[in-house]
């Protein structure tokens, strides 16, 4: 459906250094598939999502939708965005406080000149679980609860009848009891409409709740990916193992020291080696700090970028 091949995105950084936010990524989202892109802040997951949406132009590599490479002309982007829609986090910040729910949802259909606007808006609201939709038309964001606002944002994305949703932390700003309902909605949209989704998150519980496949990102690269059950129950990469080990239910913790490093200074060899608990324990190999790793292909099977992983 949506595919990134050997994608790199660089930004000018401080002191003339280039920040390699996305540093060689292959990733695909299949039809009707929910993929969770997991990582800490600064790992490049949001830049990768923005590039997949055509909001950021890659430095090299390419994005393809349905096998057709994305071109960056205005017309091509417009057509692309009818198929691939963004769901933002923090609905309070992403909804215009002075627009009614109707206007917020109608914006996309108007830009794309869709006929029969009211039917489109009303069906999008209904699919996002705001029923009966007419009751919400004239409401303003401040009159809605957090969960309802997030549903309006999702309705705005659904109004164009897209095939793929890209959701950046869709429940991070919601109350705990409301979060389950929004995640159920994403699952239902997949089951009923066959929507694909890429969910960008730092929340492994969310991935366990809704994702078919998980890709773990560290410092601009995907270091491990595969079916959710395999990656989260039997992680192979030391970074994934550490992330899972700090969850409250985990019996033994591997608390990595330091913070995610700087994308302007990506370490040589395996980019994780300076924080790797296996290397720190003296179990590293010489190539960990010298030989760059291969970029993982975009397959759906389990794969891991690590010299020390056994499989």
């Amino acid at each position, binding site marked *: 459906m949506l595919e990134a091949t050997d994608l790199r995105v660089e930004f000018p950084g401080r002191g003339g250094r280039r920040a390699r936010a996305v540093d060689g990524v292959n990733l695909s989202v299949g039809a009707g598939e929910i993929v969770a892109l997991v990582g800490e802040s600064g790992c490049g997951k949001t830049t990768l999502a923005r590039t997949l949406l055509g909001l950021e132009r890659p430095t090299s590599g390419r994005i393809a939708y349905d096998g057709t490479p994305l071109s960056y002309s205005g017309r091509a982007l417009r057509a692309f965005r009818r198929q691939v829609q963004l769901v933002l986090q923090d609905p309070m910040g992403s909804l215009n406080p002075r627009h009614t729910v109707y206007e917020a949802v109608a914006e996309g259909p108007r830009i794309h000149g869709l006929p029969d606007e009211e039917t489109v808006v009303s069906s999008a609201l209904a699919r996002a679980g705001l029923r009966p939709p007419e009751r919400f038309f004239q409401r303003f964001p401040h009159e809605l609860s957090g969960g309802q606002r997030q549903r309006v944002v999702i309705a705005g994305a659904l109004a164009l009848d897209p095939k793929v949703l890209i959701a950046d932390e869709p429940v991070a700003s919601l*109350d705990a009891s409301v979060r389950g309902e929004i995640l159920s909605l994403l699952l239902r949209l997949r089951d009923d409409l066959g929507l694909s989704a890429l969910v960008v998150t730092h929340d492994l519980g969310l991935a*366990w709740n809704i994702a078919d496949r998980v890709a773990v990102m560290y410092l601009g690269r995907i270091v491990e990916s595969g079916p959710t059950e395999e990656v989260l129950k039997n992680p192979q990469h030391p970074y994934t193992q550490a992330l899972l080990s*700090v969850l*409250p239910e985990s019996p033994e913790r591997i608390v990595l020291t330091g913070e995610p490093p700087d994308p302007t200074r990506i370490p040589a060899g395996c980019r994780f080696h300076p924080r790797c608990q296996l290397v720190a324990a003296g179990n590293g190999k010489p190539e960990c700090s010298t030989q760059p790793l291969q970029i993982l292909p975009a397959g759906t099977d389990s794969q891991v970028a690590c010299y020390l992983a056994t499989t």
Partner: protein
Amino acid sequence: MLELDELSVTYRLDSADVPAVRGVSLELAAGEALGLAGESGSGKSSVALALLRLLPRSAVVGGRVMLDGEDVLAMKWGRLRAVRWSSASIVFQGAQHGLNPVQRIGDQIAEPLLVHRQASGTDAAARVRELLAQVGLPAWRARSYPHELSGGQRQRVMIAMALACGPQLIIADEPTTALDLMVQAQVLTLIRQLIADHGISLLMISHDLSVLADVCDRLAVMYAGRLVEVGPSSEEFRHPYSQALAAAFPTVGDPASRLAPRGLAGDPPDPQQLPGGCAFHPRCPVALDSCATSDVQLRASGTDRTAACVLVGE
């Protein structure tokens, strides 16, 4: 150590009175870590602020807050100033805004020491180094400005400030909320270690039950301004709201939550329009007809546990 007796907080707004906290009674023993959980609007942060009388003027506080046998709500200003920082201190969420952006870290940590005349000049500098070491930051960081630190490091600075005057109680309001998973784990490890080393009591407030269960001996759950359940963190919850809140954060690897996110229908209630009867009944999956009319107070529900639900008996 700390005892709340029928604590209530009502915000007087132009249009109406908003009851944010409606009678909360809790005890915290010396050296104990208690977690207070709840969603936005549950009143948990109002409880935290009421403990040290940090609420705005529009808030009317009722009941009693006994800190080491003294009623905080009845203290004169001078006494209250002495109690803040030196007996009890607060670590706020969002370390972004808790620090002065144009003052060096070291000076900010030293400020409570100097104000409370616990140290002067060079002593203060030595104490700052000691505090930075306790929270795992190198001494040279004293000369840094907040923007030069990461989120996790800023939260460590906030914790160092809270420790500065050697308090017996630390109130931590969402101390790890904006932090990454790994950094959150680092900060939680630090908090756990500090309270164990210094025998400090901790009241930790969060919307995330799993974070609280990780650090605290006992957990209290708030809904619509009241406690609905208090019990040991090692046991399962019994109140349907606490159970739903716990289920909202799934255990990775648990087949029951795989492709089955769980939550509650509806939204947390508006404190200005609380439902009658049990405030939770409109969202409760197991509510009886009587729940719409009769309210249940906290009552004994097993060993060391109290819950406010007709369906949860001894």
